[in-house]
């Protein structure tokens, strides 16, 4: 069990700001965020729409450049990477889970996972990854033949198959009902426990906070509060 703050910081974030547009139309999405994210923890980001949590996640994942401030991944300064460097960073270290799954419809579950394993150095096998999310028996199905929850679990398998250092999930259960959502969160939780993947999860759903090591609230582009859970609730006990 990996909890607590005695771990190495996977990410160190200093003075992060992000402004979209300029002049009168400028929108300040992040107004100076300082944070550490530790190896192996599950962090849940909560906050109202426009509070900056998605922007923060995108910068962590190398999808966006901040306006100012620095992000260090381990010893590398992520904010100094060019586009090619960021692609390499995503490829080697980051797994993404999207709200709307974004599976490739022309590939089966296994193949969707292989899409990632083929470009990774030390991947799990697709079978192993699918077993981890409990979909070993659906391996040869195409997305159109899978339910929403199943599709999202394939997306989780795809995200973790490369054994990423960090798993970023933006509203992974946003499109799912409670029962299915719990299956997906269970998969994320299991991966975190078994592989030690640092996981950052955005949600609007307060009920999900229970499964986190820490819950970080965003408001108006700033970190409004950090709450550390004494112990993580088993996912099966969550409900909404």
């Amino acid at each position, binding site marked *: 069990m990996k909890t607590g703050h005695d771990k190495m910081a996977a990410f160190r974030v200093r003075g992060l700001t992000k402004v979209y547009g300029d002049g009168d139309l400028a929108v300040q999405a992040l107004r100076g965020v300082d944070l550490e994210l530790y190896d192996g923890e599950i962090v849940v980001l909560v906050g109202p729409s426009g509070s900056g949590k998605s922007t923060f996640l995108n910068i962590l994942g190398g999808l966006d450049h901040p306006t100012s401030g620095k992000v260090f991944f381990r010893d590398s300064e992520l904010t100094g990477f060019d586009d090619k460097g960021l692609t390499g960073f995503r490829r080697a270290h980051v797994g993404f889970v999207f709200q709307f799954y974004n599976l490739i419809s*022309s590939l089966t579950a296994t193949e969707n996972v*292989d899409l990632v394993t083929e*470009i990774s150095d030390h991947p799990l096998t697709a079978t192993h990854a699918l077993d981890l999310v409990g979909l070993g028996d659906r391996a040869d199905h195409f997305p159109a033949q899978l339910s929403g929850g199943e599709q999202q679990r394939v997306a989780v398998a795809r995200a973790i198959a490369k054994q990423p250092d960090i798993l970023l999930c933006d509203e992974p259960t946003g499109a799912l009902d409670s029962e299915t959502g719990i299956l997906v969160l269970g998969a994320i939780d299991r991966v975190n426990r078994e592989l030690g993947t640092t996981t950052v999860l955005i949600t609007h759903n307060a009920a999900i906070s229970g499964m986190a090591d820490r819950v970080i609230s965003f408001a108006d582009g700033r970190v409004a509060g950090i709450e550390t859970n004494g112990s993580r609730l088993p996912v099966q006990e969550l409900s909404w």
Partner: protein
Amino acid sequence: MSGRGLGLAAIDRKMLRDLWRMRGQAVAIALVAAAGVAMYVMAAGTFASLSATRDAYYDRYRMPDIFAGAVRAPESAAREIALLSGVLRADSRIVGQATLDMVGVDEPVLARLVSWDPSKPENLGRPYLRAGRLIAPGRPDEGMVSENFATAHGLAPGDKLVATINGQRRTIDIVGIVLSPEFVYAIAPGAIMPDNRLYGIIWLARLSLAATYDLQGAFNELAVSVIPDADQREIFAGVDRILAPFGGVSAYGRTDHMSDAFLAAEIDGLEAMGKVVPPIFLAVAAFLVNIVMSRLIQTERERIGLFKAFGYTNRAIGFHYLKLVSVITAAGALLGMAGGSWLGRAVTEIYGEFFSFPFLLFRPNLSTMIIAAGVTLAAGCLGTVSAIRRAVLLPPAEAMIPPTPPRYRQISLPGAIGRMAGFLSNKLSQPTRMIGRQLLRAWGRGAATCVGISLSVAMLVSTMFFFDAIEVLIDTQFQVGQRQDVSVTFVEATRPDALWSLERLPGVMKAEGFRAVPASVSAGRFSRNVSIIGLPAQSQLQRPLDRRLMPIAIPERGILLSAKLGELLGVGVGDTISVEVKLGARPQMELRVTALADDYIGTSAYMDIASLNRAMGHVTLISGANILLDPVDEPMFFQTVRDMPFIAGVQSNSVALAMFRATMAENLFITIFFYIAFAAIIAVGIVYNAARISLSERARELATLRVLGFSRGEVSYILLGELAVLTVIAMPLGCGLGYLFATGIIELYRTDLMRIPLIVNESTYAVSMLIVLIVTALSGLLVRRQIDQLDLVAVLKTRE
């Protein structure tokens, strides 16, 4: 819906912004439509303008309808002919031939002399003055020279020409440079091509020529004009009857007039080209606009759902998109109409110069424009309507989300094939599998792209093959079929002894005599005036060829016809035709067609020279000779021949070839050049759109992969790989289609003057494919830039 900026409804402002958003594609589609329309309008406009110009030229400068020759006919005969029913006027004239002393020219230079009576400017065949003035009355030494000849020799009014006319040497003062509808092309007797350097037309005063030829009060040629729709055959018969006592050679109409026949064949050739290629291109362009529009609308599906959710009616939405499509297509059609008219004018000017027309009439063809624009617009709208129907029939909520993930399935093949396929498939990377599955599932869409690309290749092949075909035509006609370097024609048919004197000339390696007689050949109700050429049975220089380019032996009995002549007469091998020689005793024969020669130029008939001579009166005569020449002695040969009085003309094969290139080949190439340009534009429009639409259909998937850590190159591979596969499939398909188009084109383009062999070189296929490949690669690069700009963040948010 009022009080908004610009006074436009919101939905219309959306349309304008949509247009701006998809401007790249809109421009590409409009260009395809424009190219199809422009080509159609250009071709029709050029043909109509040239025909109208020719007709007006003939009309204003009094091109005769009927011509008749005689040895010496009294003026009274002309007056009698003028009274024949249907005849408007009959003007007598004196024609002759002169040998000219041209400094620096080795070959004999000949001129046809035509009399002009300055006191009768209303006479038929009035020359059009380009420079200088017309000859004045009472000036026997003044002459006017045809412009082409003057240009070839740098002659201008004020210059002098030394000519030998009927044995007398005379100096002609050039006072005018003229054009004449009778001599748009000046073709020497016995020649198949005009040669402006060695043959020209000179107009001299009637009185002067009458004195030279001792034809005072008489004439040796008659020009006749007739009322429209007159029965020309009846007039021919009347003219022949009246002139017969005076050595009349049978009358002939414009179709047997060398210059008109040549000009008609060239303009007809243009028309034939215009009737074949542009409609194919227009159809192709319309088809492509249809496909592209339908795909474009499919990508609008979510917006259509949104409109419905807002309460817009199906009709309003349909109308909205129809407007969008109409704006794009109509812009293209308008551009095509304007561009096509402009090009038609430009091309007409090029041809006007080519044919030396003194003026040009432009006839932009409105009905053609309307047809072309209508076809294109209809095709675009039809493509839209079907796509919109599919979108508006969905409930809004469903339309607002993209179509459910397409159903893919694994295909299992039985037995060993299945195992092999499985093995191979396991070796494929996932991106490659994506390409494969996309192609297999959306095969209809892939097929449409593939067809579009292959049509681009086909259009290039089917226009560029003309260059190959013309080269083969030249090789066959001028090298394989006519191996002589020079052919000479005698002033009159001569004993074959003349060959001996020719053989002794410098450089002559071989001389073969031939006899040529004018004749009318007929079968059933078809008849044709041709020149029958009598060749020795073992003719080695001039050889009619069969389909496989093997020489056909000249039959001892019977007659050998051009395949085209056989077609015109409706006869084949084994059929019998009637032949009436229009010379001497005018013998009539029934001859069996022994073979058809697959020649590409003109319509000829060949007989054994001995059997022709027998029919002509049992005297062995030759009217000219084909000669094989040692190139080293060529100048000497020409200088000697020039001074031989019994030689009327010398036609060099290489000059004929050069003239062929300069006339018929160039005539075609002007048009073909434009066709190729249009084919290339269409190719750009199609390929760019195919790539661009593929991108918008798959942007989300590709962005997902970028987020997952795929590099730009790897992501581009998936999209462009699909395009590449389709392009590769399209290449052979396009070549095959191109060959089919070419087959159709040569089948339709078969004039009396010229047939095109179906020859498509590998290099033409290669160049066509290369052009389309380059266009594809450039479109790929453009789209690749768009892949680089994919919004990765949006992917995380948008829903599927």
